[in-house]
Structure formats: structure tokens, C-alpha cells
């Protein structure tokens, strides 16, 4: 395992907020290596003097007028929340 050593797998899992058991690390690492290897094929294409492409659509970015026409739907917004109180989402304490 070259690119995806155990520490890299742990770090990626932490950044993605995904729990990976120690027993799974090697297997997950192998799978990620496979994915990376597949995508790496793109580097075989010569891209010298080619501008990076931010979008495949050659159309201008659509803009909205600055008007208030949304919101006021606190019930809908909170509908999937596991816990809520007086209009707030309630989550496990997160504080430094």
C-alpha cells in the first residue's frame, strides 16, 4: 500500500466524518487505491497549454434579483431534525 497507508486512510476517514474500524482499514485502503488508480489514468492525457475547465457549459452564471421570496418555513426546515426545541436544532454539545 503506497498512497493509502494506514495513517492516510485514518485521516481521510476523519475529514469525511466516517467511522472506520481498525480491522477495516487495510480493506478500505485497497479500495481507495483502486479508485485513485482508475482516476490516475487521466494524467496520461497531455494537458500542456490547456486552461483548467471550471464548467462544461459555455453560458453565463445565472443571477437572481435581490428579493425576499423564501424562508418562513421553520416547520419544514426542522422536520427531519432528530431533536429540536423552540425553533432551534438541538445537537450534542460542540464547544471549544
Amino acid at each position, binding site marked *: 500500500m503506497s498512497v493509502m497507508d494506514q495513517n492516510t486512510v485514518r*485521516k481521510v476517514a*476523519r*475529514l469525511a*466524518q466516517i467511522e472506520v474500524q481498525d480491522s477495516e482499514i487495510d480493506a478500505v485502503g485497497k479500495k481507495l487505491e483502486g479508485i485513485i488508480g482508475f482516476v490516475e489514468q487521466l494524467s496520461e492525457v497531455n494537458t500542456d497549454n490547456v486552461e483548467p475547465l*471550471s*464548467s462544461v*457549459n459555455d*453560458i*453565463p*452564471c*445565472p*443571477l*437572481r*434579483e*435581490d*428579493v*425576499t*421570496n*423564501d*424562508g*418562513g*418555513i*421553520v416547520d*419544514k*426546515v*426542522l422536520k427531519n431534525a432528530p*431533536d429540536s*426545541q*423552540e*425553533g*432551534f*436544532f*438541538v*445537537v*450534542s*454539545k*460542540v*464547544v*471549544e
Partner: protein
Amino acid sequence: MAEIIRGNTGDWEMVIGLEVHAQAITESKLFSGAATAFGAAPNTQVSLVDAAMPGMLPVLNMKSVEQAVRTGLGLNSKINLYSVFERKNYFYPDLPQGYQISQYLHPIVGEGEIEIDLPNGEVKKVGITRLHLEQDAGKSIHDQHPTKSYVDLNRSGNTLMEIVSEPDLRDGIEVGAYLTKLRMILRYLGTCDGNMDEGSMRADVNISVRKVGETEYGTRCEIKNVNSIKAAQAAIDYESRRQIELLEDGGSVDQETRLWDPAQNVTRSMRSKEDAHDYRYFPDPDLLPLELEQGYVDDIKKTLPELPDEKKHRFMDSYGLGAYDASVLISSRSRADYFETVANDRDAKLAANWVINELLGILNKDGKTIEESPITSENLGKLVGLIEDNTISGRIAKDVFAEMYESGADPEKIVEEKGLKQVTDTGAIEAIIDKVIADNQDKVEQYKSGKDKLFGFFVGQVMKESQGKANPQMVNELLKKKLS
């Protein structure tokens, strides 16, 4: 001169750059039609886009773009006609998307420069690195419950302009002057209300220290949670000394994010942020690159108001004011407008004196702003006019001013109704002088035998007898004649 800190091993200086987050004034959010007003009931200003429901797509607010360009122009900065929104990835409960839409490699505004005014009268140029548009996060409340945090997404998705300065600042005083000037410019432009206590302008402080004479930068720390100019200065004082102590003890500074704790007056390491700078930016596939026409930028440029520094120089040049008076008067647009109405076609220095010393003096004492002044600018102008054309004396004017402040009345009416017009009739003044001389024969003798100081006594008596209405200059001249 910037502050130098004397350590045990030599003299140190601070190197400081600021990242200021200014909430742009818009009706609706950066990418949704939900409202942005401060203080609404929790989660009532949240659309399904802001709540990051699956399948929702962001659509850019044209007003947010305009405000960013306007601010960039006001900061004398380069406007980039091509900019790109990217995703900055991190997890936090008040960021429902799991990423913040921001700009990274291609910000909407590039390099620029502003001038800051230091208390010693020095003017210093500070470089602006960039300004980019990004979404604000929601707000978490941690003190309502022992084990839970409460999340309100009303602020989530508001338009933020992140304004990054070059590391050109050298101490807390310069930082204060920079924040003051930046806030003034934003308010003049009408792009941000600059209220630090409501969080619509927030600062992160990047600070490192180095020996005086050294040209390389030291390792810096980023300090968050700095919510006022005073807090910024206190955090800088603490953090610079912490870093110097570390270095002088043979240690090193870790590059990290630290939190300012205003209760303890210390900065603390945010250990949980160890991966904080691994944001894995990439262009947001939900948004096309933003391309602007030069004509669009030019049109916005035409609508810019006179900015604080231009106004200051005009006040000095065309009204003949000193730098200090001019800087007091331009500190807000409404204050400057007020002064210009008062000074209109009148003695500008006299007008400045009445606005600064009398009006601002009493307003400050009462905790009021110039918008809340009971005296209109037109009426204060009339008062200055009455003094200028000798209708009333400066002393009477103070009484009239006090009454205007009480009642908001027109000074011309007050002077008329109370009969406060200055007496400039030679005969009338002579009659009073004659009476004073007759009543004080002994003093006249003493004066004539050389007690010059008594002249003031006679002036006082005449003014008292005339209830302050006699023209002081005429009293002086006529008295001199009569007593000689």
C-alpha cells in the same frame, strides 16, 4: 512609530495581517431568497437551500456581486472580471452543507491599498490582498443546556465579503486604525453596516513576531473570536508577548488557530482544529464561473460616493480646516453632511467649532448620535449665521444653543422672542457706560492712576448691565474712549 517590545534577548516587533468578514447589505441571501435581517426568531429566515436539503441548487444574488465590486472599488482594488466559486469542506453543526461556498483561486477582487490615520497624525498605507465572496455559517448557542448546543441557521447563507490585508500592520494601534478606517469606508459605500457587536463585521487576526531588523516573517498564529477593536488590541498584546516568551525560552511557535477568551484575557489553542486547514477546495459544480463586463464595473464606479479620505482632504482644502477637525467631521457620512449644511455659505471654521465642540460634545455626553440631534443642521447653521453677522454675541449664542437643544426651536425665533439681539447702537451702549462710570467713581480714579487691570471690571459691569447683549467689541472701544 510602531510599538517595540523589549525582550530579554533584544527588541521585538509584531507582524499582523487581518481577515475581516463583513456581511454585505442585501435583502436576501447570497444563494437563496430567504431574508437576512438581524434578530428574527430562530430558523424563520431559512430556505431549503440554506438548510442544504438534497437537490437544492444555489442561484447567485446579483446584489451580492454588486456590493463586492463596490467595496473592491472603494478599497482601490483590482476587480477581477472572472471569478470562481469553490467548496471549502469542513464539518460543523451550523454548516449544514458540509462545505462553505467560497472563492479561493479566483476571488472577485484582487490587490489594492487603503490609507490609515494614526493617532500621532501619521498616515500609513496598508495593502489589501483580496476580497472574496462566501456564505456565512449559522449560529450555535452553547450556554442554554449542559450537554446540548442549539443551532439557528438564520445567518446561514448570508453574503460575507472576506477582506484580507497584507501583513503590513505592526501593533494594536495600527490594527485599531485599520479596522476604524475599513468600517468607515464600508459604511460610506453602504455595503456593510459595520456593527461589530451584532457580528456583521468580524475580524480574525494573523500575528507573528520577529526581532527588529529581521526581514523574514516568523511563524504566525490565527486568532479567532475577536469581536471588537478593543478585543483585537487586547488579543494582540497578549499573543505577541506569549510568542516572544516562547521564543526567548528557546521554544518555537506552532502555526495554529487560537481562540481569544475575553473573560480571561488570554488566547487558547483550538486543538480540535488540527485538520482545520485541510479544506480540499474544488470548484463548485453547482455554480458557473462569474464573468463580469468592464462596463458593469465602470457603471458601479460612477455611483460611488465621495470616500472618507477624499472628503477629509476637501474639508481641509476648501473649508480651511485642520486635519484633526476634518477627521472628526468625516468619521461618518451623516456627520459630514450635517457639517456641510451648517457651514453652507458661512464661516466654516466657526461652523466646525460649533459642530465639534458644542453639538458633538453634548451629544456624546447624552450618548446620542448626530442623527438623533434635537437641533437640525439648518437651525445650527442659522445660529452660526446670527453670530457671524453680529446679531448675537458668542456668549448669548451659548444660551440660545442650550434652549435649541431643549426645544428644537429655530434660533431666530428664540432671539426675537427673548429680545436677545446684540445691542450695537452706540448711544445705548454709551448710556450704559455712563451709568457704570457714575456708579463706580472710586474705581475710575484707581484706573486713571494706573491700575490697568480694572479695565476688565468695567467691561464685565457693562456686559452685566446690558444682560450680555452689548456688542463686546463696541463696549471695548467706547469704554477706552470714555476712560481716557
